[in-house]
């Protein structure tokens, strides 16, 4: 026989359940815009019934409702999908933004970029060829050469600046990942503690999901939640691992080492990221050791900003290499003895222009990369340092030119370039010394002779200026240590009076050898070099000496075309990833998002249920009052 007051108790439970319902609605509505929030739904169940127990009547009477649990609605599958695509999106974003900046720095097509400066350079030469004794034409060649050198310097510096910015961003991203790992490890410990007390820590789970979403911005990872039952209590062991370069998972947070002691760092936090001091790679190291070397496993790139930065740094390096090849080919090959140590990027030693450099050793010439290997030079901060005193020969910019006018030979030319290959019209190719021994007393080479020169610089030293024999136009910056010419250090060496415009000489009133004032054949030859074919290292050929033939402007145009293709692809990647993330995010919203309509409907039904329960209480109250009065 149930109690007289059973009805009151039942109605009270109704009030409590409705109250909890309204609270849940309120919680959902409040958190509608909280990142990582998964909506909660009240799981309501019936209370066990009581037998009426009157006169053998076995009917049962219900005792009302109760809150079973407050369920968190989310999908693990969608979360994993979202994080993977989000990582890819952030990687694509970084690469796109880098390539955008590179496009801005290279500034093509425009009237102020390298292409325009090169065109003006050749035009200035052509104008000088038609007016070789005019001082203003000479000055404008020097001006155009300076402009070209400065544009190369600036562009190269801006690319270096971009690279160091990317390096800083990479460092920041690595710190962010470490900080996120620590937070995730701590939250996981709190979750386990709470679950072991039989609680359901929805807020902590939300927080961890939000942290994991944030982590996916930096790199991809695998997260596993394994339910474990101990002493009748079920809790989740949460583990998180990264992938190393060999494709093996490396545990960063170990779920089997749940920490209950509030230790700092918690014992489940086992790994962190660090940048290797020698190669600059992002490596996985035990938690707490903040330094790494290339011996530590490297983080494998499967998306995220970290991979984006690494890709970007490599991309910028290829454009830096392109610029260096351009600068070297413009000036032509030469021999350089380092007067101070020279630092080169380690990632580029197998690429042009470093692939075309040779070191002079006692046993002959050795290619730079092979020399570095044989010397076992240590890598540091992603660079090799070549010691001073090393003699390096560069080979880019070599070409065959055909003389427009006769070339007067001086003692200097004969002694310096005796090995130069020449081909006089209607004769076989031979060296200059061979030619002179066959033609004793020859003082000049006839027009139409083909010369194999190491580049523009050498060609100019064959000609004549107002001051005598011509001088090299380009040199590496005089302030640094005699390094080979690069885009960063290329400068103009000489003034207008040392500029050779012609190939014939005469003797002035004081007996000096000077250029014939109206001979502009050399300048015209250079002015027509916009189409001069030369050999370029194939940027796609790995370590072999594959070459491509083309003009300097062809080479630059191809590099810009390559940039265009890369940027276009990066733009497409970003578009595809944005729409993928958008779709998955919508699906997540569909499952876990708060719907105002739904919440309001729930609010009304809980409100009405509450009112009804209150009505029941008031009815029972009236019944009991009546009963009391009648007694």
């Amino acid at each position, binding site marked *: 026989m149930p109690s007289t007051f059973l009805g009151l108790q039942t109605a009270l439970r109704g009030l409590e359940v409705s109250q909890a319902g309204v609270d849940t609605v309120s919680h959902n509505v409040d958190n*509608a*815009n909280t990142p990582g929030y998964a909506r909660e739904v009240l799981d309501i169940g019936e209370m066990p019934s009581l037998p009426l127990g009157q006169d053998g009547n076995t009917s049962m009477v219900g005792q009302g409702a109760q809150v079973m649990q407050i369920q968190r609605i989310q999908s693990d599958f969608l979360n994993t999908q979202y994080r993977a695509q989000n990582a890819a999106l952030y990687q694509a974003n970084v690469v796109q933004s880098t*390539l*955008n900046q590179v*496009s*801005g720095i290279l500034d*093509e*097509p425009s009237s102020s970029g390298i*292409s*325009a400066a090169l*065109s*003006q350079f*050749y*035009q200035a030469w*052509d*104008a000088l*060829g*038609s*007016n070789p*004794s*005019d001082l203003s034409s000479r000055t404008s060649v020097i001006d155009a050469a300076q402009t070209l050198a400065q544009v190369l310097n600036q562009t190269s510096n801006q690319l270096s600046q971009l690279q160091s910015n990317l390096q800083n961003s990479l460092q920041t991203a690595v710190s962010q990942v470490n900080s996120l790992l620590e937070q995730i490890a701590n939250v996981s410990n709190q979750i386990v503690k709470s679950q072991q007390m039989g609680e359901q820590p929805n807020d902590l789970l939300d927080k961890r999901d939000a942290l994991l979403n944030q982590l996916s911005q930096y790199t991809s990872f695998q997260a596993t939640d394994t339910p474990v039952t101990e002493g009748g209590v079920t809790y989740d062991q949460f583990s998180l691992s990264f992938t190393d370069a060999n494709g093996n998972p490396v545990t960063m947070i170990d779920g089997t080492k749940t920490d209950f002691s509030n230790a700092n760092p918690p014992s489940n936090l086992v790994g962190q990221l660090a940048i290797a001091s020698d190669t600059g790679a992002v490596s996985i190291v035990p938690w707490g050791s903040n330094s790494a070397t290339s011996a530590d496993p490297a983080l494998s790139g499967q998306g995220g900003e970290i991979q984006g930065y690494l890709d970007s740094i490599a991309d910028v390096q290829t454009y830096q290499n392109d610029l260096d090849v351009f600068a070297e080919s413009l000036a032509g090959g030469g021999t350089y003895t380092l007067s101070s140590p020279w630092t080169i990027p380690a990632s580029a030693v197998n690429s042009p222009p470093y692939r075309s450099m040779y070191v002079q050793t006692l046993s002959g010439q050795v290619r730079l990369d092979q020399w570095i290997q044989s010397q076992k030079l240590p890598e540091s901060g992603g660079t090799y340092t070549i010691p001073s005193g090393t003699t390096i020969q560069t080979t880019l910019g070599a070409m065959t030119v055909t003389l*427009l006018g006769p070339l007067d030979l001086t003692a200097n030319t004969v002694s310096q370039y005796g090995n130069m290959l020449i081909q006089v019209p209607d004769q076989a190719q031979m060296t200059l010394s061979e030619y002179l021994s066959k033609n004793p007393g020859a003082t000049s080479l006839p027009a139409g002779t083909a010369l194999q020169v190491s580049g523009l610089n050498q060609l100019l030293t064959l000609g004549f200026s107002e001051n005598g024999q011509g001088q090299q136009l380009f040199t590496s910056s005089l302030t640094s240590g005699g390094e080979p010419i690069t885009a960063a250090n290329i400068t103009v060496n000489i003034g207008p009076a040392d500029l050779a415009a*012609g190939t*014939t000489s*005469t003797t002035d009133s004081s007996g000096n050898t000077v250029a*014939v*004032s*109206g*001979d*502009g054949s050399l300048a*015209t030859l250079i*002015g*027509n070099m*916009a189409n001069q074919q030369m050999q370029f290292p194939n940027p796609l050929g790995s370590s072999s000496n594959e070459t491509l033939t083309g003009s300097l*402007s062809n080479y*630059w*145009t191809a590099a*810009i*075309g*390559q*940039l*265009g*293709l890369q*940027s*276009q692809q990066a*733009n497409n990647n970003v578009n595809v990833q*944005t*729409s993928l993330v*958008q779709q998955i995010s*919508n699906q997540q*919203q*569909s499952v876990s*998002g*708060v*719907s*105002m*309509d739904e919440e*309001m*409907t729930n609010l*009304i039904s809980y409100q009405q249920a509450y009112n009804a329960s209150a009505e029941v209480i008031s009815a029972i109250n009236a019944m009991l009052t009546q009963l009391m009065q009648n007694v």
Partner: protein
Amino acid sequence: MRITQGMLSNQVLYDIENNLQQLSKLETEASTGKRINEPADDPIGVQNVMIYQMETNFDQEYHQNATNAQSQLNFLSSVMTEAQNVVSRARDLAVEGANATETPSDMQALASEVGQLYDQLVTIGNSQYNGQYIFNGANTAAAPYPTQAANMSPDAVSGSLDPAQRVTNSGQVYMDLGDGVTLPITVSGNQFFGNQGATNNAFSVLSQLYDALNSGDHTQVDNLLNSLDSVIENMNTVQANVGSLINRAQMMQTRMTDLSNSVTQQLSNVDDADMAQVLTNLNSISAVEQASLEVGAQALPMSLVNFLKPGA
């Protein structure tokens, strides 16, 4: 599928952003008038643009060179005409002097005029264009003929001061007109005025005429008429050659204008935005953008909340 307010606002944001991106690209195209504003816009096209731009620059340079060559050659030609006039005048005087009726004083007067003509011819031989000697081959900085000789009487010059003994530079200054075409724009003095010691050397012939007139030798003057004719003939030949060079320079100038036009046309085909298309697209995208903003503004604040009265 369950639809939530978050999905609606996400979707509206995503769509508006997409529209804005397209708007911004079209806006750039419309305001620059160019289809290719960065390499990513058309990686193949950008290479063509760079090549065409360089070609246009060179065509302009060559065009300018052709114009310069033309004006220098015109100048050269007019100087040559002047020189021929001088020699023709000397011939007229010689015809007069060959006449046996001329008195010795008449002959003196004729000789004095020939002396002036001689000086004038030396001055012409040292003509300059833009400060450069045009009759000294490639050595444009030095005067081909002794400048002092222009103020001396023909019988006073001798040795190194004698223009007739001068060997001028045999080179040539070339103007680059593109496509491997180079035009000579100077002439060697020896070519035009005759080699040193040759019978058709203008200076030596005038000098001899001066002497013959001075000494009143009618027969010698008569003999020199043939030499004067061969001087004029040589000058004519060289000038005709210059005339053909002027024609070539003109042809190259026209050719460069044509080439430049055609390259500009190609550049425009690759690089210029199709304004009609851009503006049409711009209009339709901005209409879409406006619609999505309006729909967003109407749909986003909509939920059951708007229809529940407080305290109901």
